[in-house]
């Protein structure tokens, strides 16, 4: 059933609703955060039809959500959020995605860009040298079987214990970089083999390391709490659980697709939405394996942090000072969280697929400094464009299960992007803008061209206006490292 704009109910200038009664299958309404113009673009692909399918999942609570960076995925739309009742609602691997805990981390320097700009070219090259990137490139750390199991259980804390970071790093990572409930026995040998040499690597596609400077501060008070200042040099690390996470998702989709209907009587309109009750053996095993993959991703970003710190010290000859983590957020994950639904506190399984956790002030999971203002949210733009730091709000807790957008969101296929821009032309354009670039392939660069993405300024404006996150700072890139 193809939707049209007139069938959507306008809630505000930046939010719309597909009423529950629109389709007999929907168990809850679906809400979309977008401007009127952006909504027209969103309606051109299958995002909202996919969102309606999500609204039909067994045990879904309150509302299915699409963030302003939403685009068509498979099963769930990318930029989708859904919560199912705990423990008997469903868990859907497609609601998390193949790249489990793909996420982003921001590292802060204490330096102003003006003091560092002569080093940017060398720094970009050194990071490219230190952080393996590209398709099929492994890292320096090859884990033995037992070590792999420890990483899967302990995540970033295993890396810190082994010298790849400082204990205080863990306080500034969502879930302290270790999702509880991880059981390595639920992860297949194939998955472990795929991840064996991938710690400390960014991979390809839309993954990157970026050097940015803080271009604008919108909220001085929160920026101070976050340790951000105008002109500050910062780093973004965007990657996930690599082949290990991809294989975990593949393994459990294969298992669930066979048992979903005969064992649990669940039917879904798209097999990529396959799901089982969270409390079932398959559901529990998947959650344990997904937690392992999430931990692997946090360990991966921790290892890359170590590599970036090494590059920083090498180029600045030890005079750069520390690089502290502002925060590390997951984009693709399922978590058991407590939220208020119809006036009652309730445990739910929150699926975020291409969406960021955005806890507001007072949340007990946040460290004390952040508990006063809300959680830092890091929204990367497309290559060569701005990125943002935002802060979580009470309204997000009330409206979106404490969630907001995760990036700019694709608006053009990779193939079309390559037709419209060549990698070498884009490389030259970025250089002209004063951005140093190290990329494994010109083709990969073209696929990630800014024109292939929505305008991140618009996306962030929507979540800010909707009140589900508030702008704190804007970052602009000075160096890009891609696979």
């Amino acid at each position: 059933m193809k939707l049209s704009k007139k069938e959507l109910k306008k809630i505000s200038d930046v939010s719309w609703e597909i009423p529950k009664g629109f389709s007999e299958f929907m168990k809850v309404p679906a809400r979309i955060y977008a401007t009127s113009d952006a909504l027209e673009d969103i309606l051109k692909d299958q995002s909202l039809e996919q969102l309606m399918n999500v609204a039909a999942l067994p045990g879904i609570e309150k509302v299915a959500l699409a963030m302003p960076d939403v685009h068509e995925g498979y099963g769930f739309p990318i930029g989708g959020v859904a919560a199912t009742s705990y423990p008997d609602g469903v868990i859907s691997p497609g609601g998390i995605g193949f790249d489990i805990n793909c996420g982003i981390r921001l590292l802060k320097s204490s330096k102003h860009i003006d003091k560092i700009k002569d080093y940017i070219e060398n720094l970009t090259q050194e990071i490219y040298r230190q952080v393996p990137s590209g398709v099929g490139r492994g890292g320096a750390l090859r884990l033995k079987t037992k070590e792999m199991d420890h990483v899967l259980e302990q995540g970033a804390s295993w890396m810190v214990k082994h010298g790849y970071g400082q204990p205080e790093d863990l306080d500034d990572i969502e879930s302290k970089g270790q999702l509880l409930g991880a059981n390595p026995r639920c992860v297949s040998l194939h998955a472990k083999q795929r991840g064996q040499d991938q710690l400390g690597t960014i991979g390809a596609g839309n993954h990157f390391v970026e050097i940015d400077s803080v271009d604008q501060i919108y909220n001085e008070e929160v920026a101070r709490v976050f340790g951000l200042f105008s002109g500050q040099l910062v780093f973004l690390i965007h990657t996930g659980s690599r082949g290990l996470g991809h294989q975990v998702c593949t393994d459990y989709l294969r298992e669930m697709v066979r048992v979903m209907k005969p064992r649990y009587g669940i039917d879904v309109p798209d097999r990529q939405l396959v799901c089982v009750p969270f409390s079932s053996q398959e559901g529990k095993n998947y959650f344990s394996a997904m937690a392992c993959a999430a931990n692997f991703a946090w360990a991966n970003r921790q290892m890359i942090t170590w590599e970036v710190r090494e590059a920083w010290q090498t180029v600045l000859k030890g005079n750069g000072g520390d690089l502290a983590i502002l925060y590390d957020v997951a984009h693709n994950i399922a978590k058991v969280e407590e939220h208020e639904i119809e006036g009652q506190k309730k445990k739910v399984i929150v699926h975020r697929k291409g969406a960021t956790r955005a806890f507001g002030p007072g949340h007990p999971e946040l460290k004390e400094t952040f508990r006063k203002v809300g959680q830092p949210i890091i929204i990367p733009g497309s290559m060569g464009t701005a990125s943002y730091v935002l802060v979580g709000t009470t309204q997000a807790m009330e409206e979106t299960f404490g969630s907001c957008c995760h990036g700019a969101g694709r608006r053009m296929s990779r193939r079309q992007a390559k037709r419209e821009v060549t990698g070498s032309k884009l490389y030259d354009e970025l250089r002209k803008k004063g951005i140093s670039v190290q990329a494994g392939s010109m083709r990969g660069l073209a696929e990630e061209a800014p024109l292939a993405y929505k305008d991140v300024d618009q996306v962030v404006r929507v979540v800010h206006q909707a009140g589900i996150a508030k702008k704190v700072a804007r970052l602009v890139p000075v160096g890009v490292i891609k696979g």
Partner: protein
Amino acid sequence: MRKYQFLPHMADVKLKVTASDFLELLRGALEGMNALIKKDACKTNESPREVIKKINLPAQEKSLMLIDFLNEVLTLSQIHHAIFCRPQFKTLKNRTLTIQIWGKKVSGFDEDIKAVTYHDLNIIKNKQGLLETLVVFDI
């Protein structure tokens, strides 16, 4: 007879495969996937017999067998850093399709395929009486 073509998809890659029968459909889909992972790797003259692997596919709905087959080969490619060409469908015994497949080591891949998805999965018979399917790869 088999052929494949790539179709536009917003974030990922959609492959259309047409074939005279199911085993040809598996071959065509594999060729399409390999063209993504490492273009023309199967056409070079290097020895294709560097890695030999066996895949067992339990008999079930054919569309699921197709996705399982592609995912198994993808996993083998990633683990062994190899491109697997020339599948030999050995036996259909105890309702299991056994496939022997030869792979050649490669120094790198063109594309990082995360997985083969079940999205909108269906195998149909088209107007020409050929089997036809669409496969979406998450990249």
